[in-house]
């Protein structure tokens, strides 16, 4: 068991390098499928194995709210460069979590907010978490892949 040093105030990139050197990458079986646009095919989020390892270790990554704050800054029309990057480095890192927690974190970090905030409104779900074995195993007709209309949300 590797203990995570106290990383608060250490640049996030340095922490990621520390994790990459010491932690075994963890390949997640989970995938997140989402539909961002009715005219486009379904998109599939693949978790990064080094990121998953850092999440499971704990004490390395900032709270997801930090990424939202930076995204809000970037959405402003006069945005030139981040002036609150210190939030990534100086906010208390999050504790270790499970792979399920990690997927939830990635959904809130890397998917458009309107997807995960309203995933279950409308005629069918906009987002589904599944295992990679449940996806087509070849990429035939990839641009036609959609979330099924018959998906049973109660299952």
């Amino acid at each position, binding site marked *: 068991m590797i203990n995570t*040093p106290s990383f608060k105030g*250490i*640049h*996030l*990139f*340095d922490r*990621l*390098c*520390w994790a*990459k050197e010491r932690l075994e*990458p963890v*390949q997640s079986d989970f*995938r997140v499928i989402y539909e961002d646009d009715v005219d*486009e*095919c379904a*998109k*599939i*989020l*693949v*978790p*990064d*194995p*080094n*990121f998953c390892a*850092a999440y499971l270790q704990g004490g390395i*990554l900032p709270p997801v709210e930090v*990424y939202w704050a*930076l*995204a809000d800054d*970037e959405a402003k029309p006069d945005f*030139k*460069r*981040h002036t609150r*990057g210190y939030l*990534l480095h100086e906010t208390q890192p999050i504790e270790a979590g499970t792979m399920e927690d990690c997927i939830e974190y*990635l959904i809130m*970090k*890397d998917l458009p907010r309107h997807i995960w905030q309203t995933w279950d409104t409308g005629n069918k779900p906009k987002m589904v978490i599944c295992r*990679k074995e449940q*996806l*087509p*195993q*070849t*990429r035939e007709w*990839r*641009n036609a*892949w959609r979330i099924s209309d018959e998906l049973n949300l109660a299952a």
Partner: protein
Amino acid sequence: MAGKIIADQIEHSTAGSLDTSYVVNGSSKAWANIDGTGTIALRDSLNISSLVDDGTGAYDTHFSNSFSNIIYCALGCAKEASTGSRTSDVDRVFHPARLPFTTSACAWLAQRYDGIDADVDEAYPLLFGDLA
């Protein structure tokens, strides 16, 4: 952090000196080795949180440590599965897509040399720039 050396310059005994800013600014800040076959995956990476499969030949890389602005450098290359031969008639190009960069993600596109979007067996995005 243990083992940290703070220096503005490094000097070789005969070959001269170099500002460490060259090393810091000139190093890649994010990269990935993408397995584009089947249910695509990341073989290895640095500073990547996730990869998004957007469709045939289309991918997004999301960064764990955002760039400080959208003026960064994104390079990419790809290769088909190793066959033991140098020659191939199905090699791909892999490059940033014609979408705006954001500080937290970059969109990529793989194409055949005739311009048709196509999946790749392996893709290698590589990014340089200033981190937030």
